[in-house]
Protein backbone atom coordinates (compact mmCIF):
# COMPACT_ATOMS: atom_id res chain seq x y z
CA UNK A 1 0.00 0.00 0.00
CA UNK A 2 1.27 3.45 -0.81
CA UNK A 3 0.31 6.08 1.71
CA UNK A 4 2.28 9.08 0.48
CA UNK A 5 3.02 10.75 -2.84
CA UNK A 6 6.44 10.01 -4.44
CA UNK A 7 7.40 13.67 -4.03
CA UNK A 8 7.06 13.33 -0.25
CA UNK A 9 9.14 10.18 -0.32
CA UNK A 10 11.91 12.08 -2.07
CA UNK A 11 11.70 14.98 0.36
CA UNK A 12 11.85 12.67 3.40
CA UNK A 13 14.87 10.84 1.95
CA UNK A 14 16.50 14.22 1.34
CA UNK A 15 15.88 15.13 4.99
CA UNK A 16 17.46 11.83 6.07
CA UNK A 17 20.49 12.49 3.85
CA UNK A 18 20.91 15.94 5.41
CA UNK A 19 20.76 14.31 8.87
CA UNK A 20 23.63 11.99 7.89
CA UNK A 21 25.73 14.91 6.67
CA UNK A 22 25.04 16.78 9.92
CA UNK A 23 26.00 13.65 11.89
CA UNK A 24 29.43 13.66 10.28
CA UNK A 25 29.72 17.44 10.60
CA UNK A 26 29.03 17.14 14.34
CA UNK A 27 32.26 15.14 14.67
CA UNK A 28 34.27 18.33 14.05
CA UNK A 29 34.35 18.76 17.82
CA UNK A 30 33.82 16.47 20.82
CA UNK A 31 31.28 19.02 22.08
CA UNK A 32 28.87 18.61 19.17
CA UNK A 33 29.66 15.00 18.26
CA UNK A 34 27.09 13.26 20.44
CA UNK A 35 24.23 15.47 19.31
CA UNK A 36 25.33 14.90 15.70
CA UNK A 37 25.16 11.15 16.15
CA UNK A 38 21.62 11.41 17.52
CA UNK A 39 20.64 13.52 14.49
CA UNK A 40 22.06 10.74 12.30
CA UNK A 41 20.06 8.09 14.17
CA UNK A 42 16.92 10.22 13.76
CA UNK A 43 17.61 10.43 10.00
CA UNK A 44 17.93 6.65 9.82
CA UNK A 45 14.65 6.14 11.69
CA UNK A 46 12.95 8.66 9.40
CA UNK A 47 14.22 6.86 6.29
CA UNK A 48 13.09 3.44 7.53
CA UNK A 49 9.63 4.79 8.42
CA UNK A 50 9.45 6.42 4.97
CA UNK A 51 10.12 3.21 3.07
CA UNK A 52 7.20 1.44 4.76
CA UNK A 53 4.69 4.08 3.64
CA UNK A 54 6.06 4.85 0.19
CA UNK A 55 6.32 1.58 -1.74
CA UNK A 56 3.91 -1.28 -2.15
CA UNK A 57 4.94 -3.76 0.53
CA UNK A 58 4.19 -7.42 1.10
CA UNK A 59 5.53 -9.55 3.95
CA UNK A 60 5.45 -6.61 6.38
CA UNK A 61 5.14 -8.80 9.55
CA UNK A 62 8.13 -10.85 8.41
CA UNK A 63 10.18 -7.73 7.76
CA UNK A 64 9.30 -6.21 11.13
CA UNK A 65 10.18 -9.53 12.77
CA UNK A 66 13.57 -9.58 11.04
CA UNK A 67 14.21 -6.02 12.23
CA UNK A 68 13.38 -6.98 15.80
CA UNK A 69 15.81 -9.91 15.55
CA UNK A 70 18.57 -7.70 14.15
CA UNK A 71 18.12 -4.99 16.79
CA UNK A 72 17.84 -7.36 19.70
CA UNK A 73 21.10 -9.05 18.71
CA UNK A 74 23.05 -5.87 17.99
CA UNK A 75 21.89 -3.43 20.68
CA UNK A 76 23.05 -5.48 23.73
CA UNK A 77 26.38 -6.24 22.02
CA UNK A 78 26.86 -2.54 21.26
CA UNK A 79 26.03 -1.62 24.86
CA UNK A 80 28.33 -4.14 26.48
CA UNK A 81 31.36 -4.23 24.20
CA UNK A 82 34.64 -3.17 25.83
CA UNK A 83 36.35 -0.16 24.32
CA UNK A 84 39.45 -2.24 23.64
CA UNK A 85 37.23 -4.48 21.49
CA UNK A 86 35.93 -1.58 19.42
CA UNK A 87 38.01 -2.50 16.33
CA UNK A 88 36.43 -5.97 16.26
CA UNK A 89 32.93 -4.56 16.56
CA UNK A 90 33.52 -2.00 13.82
CA UNK A 91 34.88 -4.78 11.59
CA UNK A 92 31.80 -6.88 12.37
CA UNK A 93 29.28 -4.13 11.55
CA UNK A 94 31.27 -3.31 8.46
CA UNK A 95 31.05 -6.90 7.30
CA UNK A 96 27.31 -7.32 7.89
CA UNK A 97 26.62 -4.05 6.06
CA UNK A 98 28.67 -5.20 3.07
CA UNK A 99 26.97 -8.59 3.18
CA UNK A 100 23.51 -7.01 3.24
CA UNK A 101 24.41 -4.83 0.23
CA UNK A 102 25.63 -7.88 -1.70
CA UNK A 103 22.42 -9.81 -0.94
CA UNK A 104 20.24 -6.88 -2.04
CA UNK A 105 22.16 -6.65 -5.32
CA UNK A 106 21.87 -10.41 -5.89
CA UNK A 107 18.09 -10.32 -5.50
CA UNK A 108 17.69 -7.23 -7.68
CA UNK A 109 19.32 -9.02 -10.62
CA UNK A 110 16.00 -10.70 -11.48
CA UNK A 111 14.23 -7.31 -11.62
CA UNK A 112 16.27 -5.63 -14.31
CA UNK A 113 17.11 -5.95 -18.01
CA UNK A 114 19.18 -2.75 -18.09
CA UNK A 115 22.90 -3.39 -18.61
CA UNK A 116 23.99 -0.29 -16.70
CA UNK A 117 21.97 -1.37 -13.69
CA UNK A 118 23.63 -4.79 -14.00
CA UNK A 119 27.03 -3.06 -13.93
CA UNK A 120 26.05 -1.50 -10.60
CA UNK A 121 24.78 -4.91 -9.44
CA UNK A 122 28.03 -6.77 -10.19
CA UNK A 123 30.01 -3.98 -8.53
CA UNK A 124 27.88 -4.16 -5.37
CA UNK A 125 28.07 -7.96 -5.35
CA UNK A 126 31.83 -8.09 -5.69
CA UNK A 127 32.75 -5.22 -3.36
CA UNK A 128 30.11 -6.19 -0.78
CA UNK A 129 31.39 -9.79 -0.77
CA UNK A 130 35.03 -8.67 -0.43
CA UNK A 131 34.03 -6.42 2.46
CA UNK A 132 32.01 -9.18 4.16
CA UNK A 133 34.73 -11.84 3.96
CA UNK A 134 37.57 -9.39 4.62
CA UNK A 135 35.80 -8.05 7.70
CA UNK A 136 35.11 -11.58 8.93
CA UNK A 137 38.84 -12.39 8.75
CA UNK A 138 39.76 -9.05 10.37
CA UNK A 139 37.28 -9.79 13.15
CA UNK A 140 38.74 -13.28 13.68
CA UNK A 141 42.25 -11.85 13.85
CA UNK A 142 41.34 -9.11 16.32
CA UNK A 143 39.24 -11.44 18.46
CA UNK A 144 42.17 -13.89 18.30
CA UNK A 145 40.01 -16.65 16.89
CA UNK A 146 42.91 -17.17 14.48
CA UNK A 147 46.56 -16.19 14.41
CA UNK A 148 47.22 -12.45 14.47
CA UNK A 149 50.42 -12.91 12.46
CA UNK A 150 50.39 -12.36 8.71
CA UNK A 151 49.36 -15.57 6.93
CA UNK A 152 51.45 -15.92 3.79
CA UNK A 153 51.88 -19.01 1.66
CA UNK A 154 53.70 -19.55 -1.62
CA UNK A 155 51.58 -18.75 -4.65
CA UNK A 156 49.31 -16.36 -2.73
CA UNK A 157 49.85 -13.43 -5.14
CA UNK A 158 49.21 -15.71 -8.13
CA UNK A 159 46.06 -17.11 -6.53
CA UNK A 160 44.82 -13.59 -5.72
CA UNK A 161 45.49 -12.49 -9.31
CA UNK A 162 43.64 -15.53 -10.69
CA UNK A 163 40.64 -14.94 -8.41
CA UNK A 164 40.42 -11.28 -9.41
CA UNK A 165 40.69 -12.13 -13.12
CA UNK A 166 37.99 -14.77 -12.79
CA UNK A 167 35.83 -12.26 -10.88
CA UNK A 168 36.15 -9.68 -13.65
CA UNK A 169 35.28 -12.37 -16.21
CA UNK A 170 32.23 -13.48 -14.22
CA UNK A 171 31.17 -9.85 -13.74
CA UNK A 172 31.27 -9.14 -17.49
CA UNK A 173 29.33 -12.35 -18.15
CA UNK A 174 26.65 -11.38 -15.61
CA UNK A 175 26.30 -7.92 -17.17
CA UNK A 176 25.62 -9.45 -20.60
CA UNK A 177 23.64 -12.57 -19.61
CA UNK A 178 21.93 -11.59 -16.36
CA UNK A 179 22.58 -15.18 -15.20
CA UNK A 180 21.77 -15.79 -11.53
CA UNK A 181 24.13 -18.78 -11.33
CA UNK A 182 27.05 -16.71 -12.62
CA UNK A 183 26.13 -14.02 -10.09
CA UNK A 184 26.45 -16.66 -7.34
CA UNK A 185 29.87 -17.61 -8.74
CA UNK A 186 30.84 -13.92 -8.63
CA UNK A 187 29.69 -13.75 -5.01
CA UNK A 188 31.90 -16.74 -4.11
CA UNK A 189 34.88 -15.24 -5.95
CA UNK A 190 34.33 -11.97 -4.05
CA UNK A 191 34.30 -13.83 -0.73
CA UNK A 192 37.53 -15.64 -1.67
CA UNK A 193 39.18 -12.37 -2.69
CA UNK A 194 38.18 -10.79 0.64
CA UNK A 195 39.80 -13.64 2.58
CA UNK A 196 42.98 -13.52 0.49
CA UNK A 197 43.18 -9.73 0.84
CA UNK A 198 43.25 -9.72 4.64
CA UNK A 199 45.11 -12.99 5.44
CA UNK A 200 48.60 -11.54 4.78
CA UNK A 201 47.99 -8.38 6.84
CA UNK A 202 49.41 -8.39 10.35
CA UNK A 203 49.14 -6.58 13.67
CA UNK A 204 50.16 -2.98 13.13
CA UNK A 205 48.59 -2.72 9.68
CA UNK A 206 45.09 -3.64 10.85
CA UNK A 207 43.98 0.04 11.19
CA UNK A 208 44.56 0.45 7.45
CA UNK A 209 42.54 -2.64 6.58
CA UNK A 210 39.61 -1.63 8.78
CA UNK A 211 39.54 1.81 7.13
CA UNK A 212 39.77 0.33 3.67
CA UNK A 213 36.96 -2.19 4.26
CA UNK A 214 34.89 0.68 5.66
CA UNK A 215 35.36 2.52 2.36
CA UNK A 216 34.50 -0.68 0.42
CA UNK A 217 31.20 -1.15 2.25
CA UNK A 218 30.37 2.51 1.62
CA UNK A 219 31.00 2.06 -2.10
CA UNK A 220 28.90 -1.13 -2.16
CA UNK A 221 25.98 0.68 -0.49
CA UNK A 222 26.30 3.65 -2.88
CA UNK A 223 26.26 1.27 -5.85
CA UNK A 224 23.20 -0.52 -4.45
CA UNK A 225 21.55 2.92 -4.38
CA UNK A 226 22.22 3.16 -8.11
CA UNK A 227 20.71 -0.33 -8.54
CA UNK A 228 17.50 0.61 -6.70
CA UNK A 229 17.43 4.20 -7.98
CA UNK A 230 17.43 5.31 -4.34
CA UNK A 231 19.12 8.68 -3.73
CA UNK A 232 19.45 8.21 0.02
CA UNK A 233 21.50 5.02 -0.38
CA UNK A 234 23.69 6.78 -2.94
CA UNK A 235 24.38 9.75 -0.67
CA UNK A 236 24.86 7.68 2.51
CA UNK A 237 27.13 5.16 0.78
CA UNK A 238 29.20 7.93 -0.79
CA UNK A 239 29.66 9.68 2.56
CA UNK A 240 30.94 6.45 4.08
CA UNK A 241 33.15 5.82 1.06
CA UNK A 242 34.68 9.28 1.48
CA UNK A 243 35.19 8.77 5.21
CA UNK A 244 36.83 5.38 4.69
CA UNK A 245 39.08 6.74 1.94
CA UNK A 246 40.20 9.71 4.03
CA UNK A 247 40.92 7.48 7.05
CA UNK A 248 42.82 4.98 4.91
CA UNK A 249 44.97 7.77 3.50
CA UNK A 250 45.48 9.33 6.93
CA UNK A 251 46.62 5.99 8.37
CA UNK A 252 48.96 5.31 5.46
CA UNK A 253 50.45 8.81 5.77
CA UNK A 254 50.88 8.34 9.52
CA UNK A 255 52.84 5.16 8.82
CA UNK A 256 54.84 6.84 6.04
CA UNK A 257 53.84 4.07 3.65
CA UNK A 258 51.58 3.75 0.64
CA UNK A 259 48.27 1.89 0.88
CA UNK A 260 49.38 -0.47 -1.88
CA UNK A 261 52.66 -1.06 -0.05
CA UNK A 262 50.80 -2.13 3.08
CA UNK A 263 48.30 -4.39 1.31
CA UNK A 264 50.75 -5.98 -1.06
CA UNK A 265 53.91 -5.57 1.02
CA UNK A 266 53.20 -8.76 2.90
CA UNK A 267 52.73 -10.59 -0.39
CA UNK A 268 56.33 -9.76 -1.18
CA UNK A 269 57.79 -11.06 2.04
CA UNK A 270 56.26 -10.06 5.34
CA UNK A 271 57.14 -6.39 5.91
CA UNK A 272 55.06 -6.48 9.10
CA UNK A 273 56.83 -9.47 10.58
CA UNK A 274 59.34 -7.43 12.61
CA UNK A 275 62.75 -8.62 13.73
CA UNK A 276 63.99 -9.70 17.09
CA UNK A 277 67.55 -8.46 16.64
CA UNK A 278 68.89 -7.00 19.87
CA UNK A 279 71.93 -4.79 20.06
CA UNK A 280 74.33 -5.19 23.00
CA UNK A 281 75.13 -1.49 23.42
CA UNK A 282 74.64 -0.18 26.94
CA UNK A 283 71.39 1.58 27.92
CA UNK A 284 70.49 3.35 31.13
CA UNK A 285 67.81 1.31 32.82
CA UNK A 286 66.22 2.51 35.97
CA UNK A 287 63.84 1.76 38.85
CA UNK A 288 60.19 2.86 39.21
CA UNK A 289 61.27 5.11 42.13
CA UNK A 290 63.81 6.96 39.96
CA UNK A 291 61.19 7.46 37.25
CA UNK A 292 58.76 8.74 39.88
CA UNK A 293 61.33 11.31 41.03
CA UNK A 294 61.92 12.45 37.44
CA UNK A 295 58.18 12.85 36.90
CA UNK A 296 57.27 14.19 40.33
CA UNK A 297 59.71 17.11 40.23
CA UNK A 298 59.05 18.11 36.62
CA UNK A 299 56.99 21.10 35.57
CA UNK A 300 55.71 19.70 32.33
CA UNK A 301 55.22 16.03 31.40
CA UNK A 302 53.96 14.61 28.12
CA UNK A 303 52.81 10.99 28.10
CA UNK A 304 53.16 9.19 24.76
CA UNK A 305 50.92 6.12 24.77
CA UNK A 306 51.41 3.44 22.12
CA UNK A 307 50.12 0.09 21.01
CA UNK A 308 51.87 -1.57 23.97
CA UNK A 309 49.74 0.40 26.46
CA UNK A 310 46.55 -0.80 24.78
CA UNK A 311 47.82 -4.39 24.71
CA UNK A 312 48.68 -4.24 28.42
CA UNK A 313 45.28 -2.59 29.16
CA UNK A 314 47.20 0.07 31.08
CA UNK A 315 45.17 3.13 29.97
CA UNK A 316 43.37 3.51 33.31
CA UNK A 317 46.65 3.40 35.21
CA UNK A 318 48.14 5.95 32.81
CA UNK A 319 45.14 8.23 33.43
CA UNK A 320 45.54 7.84 37.21
CA UNK A 321 49.23 8.70 36.92
CA UNK A 322 48.31 11.86 34.99
CA UNK A 323 45.83 12.86 37.72
CA UNK A 324 48.40 12.17 40.47
CA UNK A 325 50.97 14.33 38.67
CA UNK A 326 48.45 17.11 38.07
CA UNK A 327 47.68 17.02 41.78
CA UNK A 328 51.33 17.99 42.29
CA UNK A 329 50.81 21.01 40.04
CA UNK A 330 52.50 19.42 37.05
CA UNK A 331 51.22 20.16 33.56
CA UNK A 332 50.39 16.79 31.92
CA UNK A 333 49.23 16.08 28.37
CA UNK A 334 48.90 12.97 26.24
CA UNK A 335 50.54 13.06 22.79
CA UNK A 336 48.71 10.73 20.46
CA UNK A 337 50.19 9.46 17.24
CA UNK A 338 47.54 8.73 14.59
CA UNK A 339 48.42 5.03 14.44
CA UNK A 340 48.49 4.44 18.21
CA UNK A 341 46.01 1.64 18.94
CA UNK A 342 44.33 -0.86 16.70
CA UNK A 343 42.14 1.42 14.62
CA UNK A 344 42.24 5.10 13.66
CA UNK A 345 41.84 7.22 16.81
CA UNK A 346 41.55 4.15 19.06
CA UNK A 347 43.90 5.48 21.75
CA UNK A 348 41.74 8.58 22.20
CA UNK A 349 38.70 6.43 22.92
CA UNK A 350 40.60 4.27 25.40
CA UNK A 351 41.88 7.33 27.27
CA UNK A 352 38.49 9.07 27.14
CA UNK A 353 37.03 5.95 28.75
CA UNK A 354 39.67 6.26 31.49
CA UNK A 355 38.30 9.77 32.19
CA UNK A 356 41.10 11.76 30.56
CA UNK A 357 39.48 15.04 29.44
CA UNK A 358 39.67 15.54 25.68
CA UNK A 359 41.58 18.81 26.11
CA UNK A 360 44.53 16.71 27.33
CA UNK A 361 44.48 14.47 24.25
CA UNK A 362 46.78 16.27 21.82
CA UNK A 363 47.22 15.46 18.15
CA UNK A 364 50.71 15.05 16.78
CA UNK A 365 50.76 18.35 14.85
CA UNK A 366 49.45 20.24 17.84
CA UNK A 367 51.95 18.99 20.43
CA UNK A 368 55.18 18.39 18.51
CA UNK A 369 56.46 21.94 19.08
CA UNK A 370 55.79 21.60 22.82
CA UNK A 371 58.32 18.81 23.47
CA UNK A 372 61.06 21.49 23.43
CA UNK A 373 59.64 22.99 26.63
CA UNK A 374 58.90 19.62 28.23
CA UNK A 375 60.86 18.22 31.16
CA UNK A 376 59.93 14.58 30.80
CA UNK A 377 58.45 12.69 27.84
CA UNK A 378 57.08 9.38 29.17
CA UNK A 379 56.84 6.88 26.30
CA UNK A 380 54.61 3.94 27.21
CA UNK A 381 54.59 0.96 24.88
CA UNK A 382 55.48 2.98 21.77
CA UNK A 383 58.63 2.74 19.71
CA UNK A 384 58.48 3.35 15.97
CA UNK A 385 56.28 6.44 16.34
CA UNK A 386 59.05 8.19 18.35
CA UNK A 387 62.03 6.82 16.42
CA UNK A 388 64.20 9.70 15.07
CA UNK A 389 65.39 7.36 12.29
CA UNK A 390 62.17 8.34 10.51
CA UNK A 391 63.70 11.79 10.04
CA UNK A 392 67.43 11.12 9.93
CA UNK A 393 68.05 7.73 8.30
CA UNK A 394 67.16 7.65 4.61
CA UNK A 395 66.70 4.01 3.67
CA UNK A 396 65.20 3.07 7.00
CA UNK A 397 61.83 1.28 6.60
CA UNK A 398 60.10 4.06 8.52
CA UNK A 399 61.93 6.95 6.79
CA UNK A 400 59.41 9.69 6.03
CA UNK A 401 56.93 8.58 8.67
CA UNK A 402 55.83 11.56 10.81
CA UNK A 403 56.93 11.01 14.42
CA UNK A 404 56.35 12.53 17.84
CA UNK A 405 59.45 14.62 18.56
CA UNK A 406 60.12 13.23 22.04
CA UNK A 407 63.88 13.61 21.45
CA UNK A 408 63.38 17.36 22.01
CA UNK A 409 62.33 16.84 25.62
CA UNK A 410 64.93 17.30 28.38
CA UNK A 411 64.42 13.75 29.66
CA UNK A 412 62.91 10.78 27.88
CA UNK A 413 61.61 7.77 29.80
CA UNK A 414 60.68 4.59 27.94
CA UNK A 415 58.47 2.02 29.62
CA UNK A 416 59.26 -1.07 27.55
CA UNK A 417 58.77 -4.77 27.76
CA UNK A 418 62.26 -5.49 26.35
CA UNK A 419 64.86 -4.11 23.96
CA UNK A 420 63.01 -5.79 21.11
CA UNK A 421 62.44 -3.28 18.27
CA UNK A 422 58.94 -2.23 17.19
CA UNK A 423 56.90 -3.52 14.27
CA UNK A 424 59.21 -1.93 11.73
CA UNK A 425 61.99 -4.11 13.17
CA UNK A 426 64.55 -1.33 13.49
CA UNK A 427 66.55 -0.03 16.40
CA UNK A 428 65.66 3.22 18.10
CA UNK A 429 68.83 5.32 18.52
CA UNK A 430 66.97 7.45 21.05
CA UNK A 431 67.25 4.67 23.61
CA UNK A 432 71.05 5.03 23.69
CA UNK A 433 71.02 8.82 24.12
CA UNK A 434 72.23 10.32 27.42
CA UNK A 435 68.86 11.94 28.23
CA UNK A 436 67.03 8.61 27.96
CA UNK A 437 66.05 6.31 30.83
CA UNK A 438 64.45 2.90 30.39
CA UNK A 439 62.17 1.01 32.73
CA UNK A 440 61.63 -2.57 31.64
CA UNK A 441 58.46 -4.55 32.23
CA UNK A 442 54.80 -4.87 31.32
CA UNK A 443 53.39 -1.39 30.63
CA UNK A 444 50.58 -1.70 33.16
CA UNK A 445 52.76 -3.13 35.96
CA UNK A 446 55.44 -0.48 35.42
CA UNK A 447 52.83 2.28 35.45
CA UNK A 448 51.32 0.92 38.65
CA UNK A 449 54.74 0.88 40.36
CA UNK A 450 55.58 4.39 39.13
CA UNK A 451 52.14 5.60 40.25
CA UNK A 452 52.57 4.33 43.81
CA UNK A 453 56.11 5.73 43.92
CA UNK A 454 54.80 9.15 42.81
CA UNK A 455 52.12 9.05 45.51
CA UNK A 456 54.80 8.22 48.09
CA UNK A 457 56.99 11.22 47.14
Amino acid sequence: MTLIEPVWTSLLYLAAAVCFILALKGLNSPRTARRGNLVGAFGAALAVATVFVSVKMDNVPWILGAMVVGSSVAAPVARQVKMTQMPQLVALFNGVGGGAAALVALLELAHTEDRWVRVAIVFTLLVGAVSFAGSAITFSKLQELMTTRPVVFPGLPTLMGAVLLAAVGAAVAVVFSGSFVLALVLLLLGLTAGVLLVLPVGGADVPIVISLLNAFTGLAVAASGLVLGNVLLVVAGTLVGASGTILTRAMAAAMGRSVAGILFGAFKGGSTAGSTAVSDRPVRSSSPEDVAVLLGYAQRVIIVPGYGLAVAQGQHTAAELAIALEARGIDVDFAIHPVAGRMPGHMNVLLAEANVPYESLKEMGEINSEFRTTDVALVVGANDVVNPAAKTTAGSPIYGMPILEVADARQVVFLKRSMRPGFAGIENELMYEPQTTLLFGDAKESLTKVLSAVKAL
Partner: protein
Amino acid sequence: MDGIALLTITVLAIFVGFEVVSKVSSTLHTPLMSGANAIHGIILVGAIIVAGQASDPWVLAVALLAVVLATANLVGGFVVTDRMLEMFHGRKREVGADGKSAANKLEAIKPEARKGTR
Protein backbone atom coordinates in the same frame (compact mmCIF):
# COMPACT_ATOMS: atom_id res chain seq x y z
CA MET B 1 15.08 8.72 -11.53
CA ASP B 2 17.18 9.01 -14.66
CA GLY B 3 20.82 7.99 -14.76
CA ILE B 4 22.31 11.46 -15.29
CA ALA B 5 20.51 12.91 -12.27
CA LEU B 6 21.76 9.99 -10.11
CA LEU B 7 25.28 10.47 -11.43
CA THR B 8 25.11 14.20 -10.66
CA ILE B 9 23.99 13.48 -7.10
CA THR B 10 26.74 10.87 -6.69
CA VAL B 11 29.47 13.26 -7.81
CA LEU B 12 28.19 16.08 -5.59
CA ALA B 13 27.91 13.66 -2.65
CA ILE B 14 31.55 12.67 -3.13
CA PHE B 15 32.61 16.31 -2.78
CA VAL B 16 30.36 16.90 0.23
CA GLY B 17 31.70 13.72 1.84
CA PHE B 18 35.35 14.68 1.44
CA GLU B 19 34.65 18.25 2.54
CA VAL B 20 32.82 17.24 5.74
CA VAL B 21 34.98 14.29 6.73
CA SER B 22 38.34 16.01 6.18
CA LYS B 23 37.40 18.48 8.93
CA VAL B 24 36.89 15.75 11.55
CA SER B 25 39.51 15.97 14.29
CA SER B 26 41.77 12.93 14.51
CA THR B 27 40.81 12.61 18.18
CA LEU B 28 37.41 11.44 16.95
CA HIS B 29 38.55 9.10 14.18
CA THR B 30 37.20 5.99 15.89
CA PRO B 31 33.71 7.47 16.44
CA LEU B 32 33.89 8.73 12.84
CA MET B 33 34.46 5.23 11.62
CA SER B 34 31.76 3.68 13.76
CA GLY B 35 29.37 6.53 12.90
CA ALA B 36 30.06 6.05 9.19
CA ASN B 37 29.51 2.36 9.80
CA ALA B 38 26.09 3.09 11.28
CA ILE B 39 25.24 5.29 8.29
CA HIS B 40 25.93 2.52 5.79
CA GLY B 41 23.47 0.41 7.76
CA ILE B 42 20.85 2.43 5.85
CA ILE B 43 21.19 -0.34 3.28
CA LEU B 44 18.30 -1.55 5.46
CA VAL B 45 16.04 0.62 3.26
CA GLY B 46 17.19 -1.37 0.23
CA ALA B 47 16.76 -4.68 2.04
CA ILE B 48 13.22 -3.74 3.10
CA ILE B 49 12.28 -2.76 -0.47
CA VAL B 50 13.58 -6.08 -1.81
CA ALA B 51 11.88 -8.08 0.96
CA GLY B 52 8.62 -6.18 0.38
CA GLN B 53 8.60 -7.23 -3.28
CA ALA B 54 9.54 -10.86 -2.70
CA SER B 55 6.96 -13.50 -3.73
CA ASP B 56 9.20 -16.57 -3.86
CA PRO B 57 9.92 -17.99 -0.35
CA TRP B 58 13.64 -18.37 -1.09
CA VAL B 59 13.94 -14.79 -2.25
CA LEU B 60 12.06 -13.69 0.86
CA ALA B 61 14.40 -15.74 3.08
CA VAL B 62 17.50 -14.18 1.57
CA ALA B 63 15.96 -10.69 1.70
CA LEU B 64 15.00 -11.18 5.36
CA LEU B 65 18.59 -12.24 6.10
CA ALA B 66 19.68 -8.95 4.52
CA VAL B 67 17.15 -7.12 6.73
CA VAL B 68 18.55 -8.78 9.87
CA LEU B 69 22.15 -7.95 8.92
CA ALA B 70 21.35 -4.36 7.95
CA THR B 71 19.29 -3.71 11.11
CA ALA B 72 22.11 -5.07 13.27
CA ASN B 73 24.52 -2.76 11.44
CA LEU B 74 22.27 0.30 11.73
CA VAL B 75 21.09 -0.05 15.33
CA GLY B 76 24.35 -1.40 16.73
CA GLY B 77 26.37 1.26 14.92
CA PHE B 78 24.43 4.21 16.31
CA VAL B 79 24.25 2.75 19.83
CA VAL B 80 27.98 2.07 20.10
CA THR B 81 28.88 5.45 18.61
CA ASP B 82 26.68 7.16 21.18
CA ARG B 83 28.30 5.19 23.98
CA MET B 84 31.74 6.19 22.79
CA LEU B 85 30.94 9.88 22.34
CA GLU B 86 29.38 9.98 25.79
CA MET B 87 32.84 9.28 27.25
CA PHE B 88 34.49 12.30 25.64
CA HIS B 89 34.15 15.03 28.24
CA GLY B 90 36.01 18.22 28.95
CA ARG B 91 37.74 19.25 32.16
CA LYS B 92 35.17 19.26 34.94
CA ARG B 93 37.12 21.59 37.21
CA GLU B 94 40.03 23.92 36.54
CA VAL B 95 43.39 22.97 38.03
CA GLY B 96 44.40 25.56 40.63
CA ALA B 97 47.90 27.05 40.65
CA ASP B 98 48.64 25.57 44.09
CA GLY B 99 47.48 22.14 43.01
CA LYS B 100 44.91 22.07 45.76
CA SER B 101 41.79 21.94 43.63
CA ALA B 102 43.57 19.41 41.46
CA ALA B 103 43.85 17.26 44.56
CA ASN B 104 40.10 17.54 45.01
CA LYS B 105 39.70 16.55 41.39
CA LEU B 106 41.83 13.50 42.06
CA GLU B 107 39.46 12.47 44.83
CA ALA B 108 36.44 13.17 42.64
CA ILE B 109 37.59 11.03 39.77
CA LYS B 110 39.52 8.29 41.49
CA PRO B 111 36.68 5.92 42.42
CA GLU B 112 35.54 5.76 38.81
CA ALA B 113 39.05 5.38 37.47
CA ARG B 114 39.63 2.62 39.98
CA LYS B 115 36.47 0.84 38.96
CA GLY B 116 37.69 0.90 35.38
CA THR B 117 41.00 -0.78 36.14
CA ARG B 118 39.40 -3.93 37.42
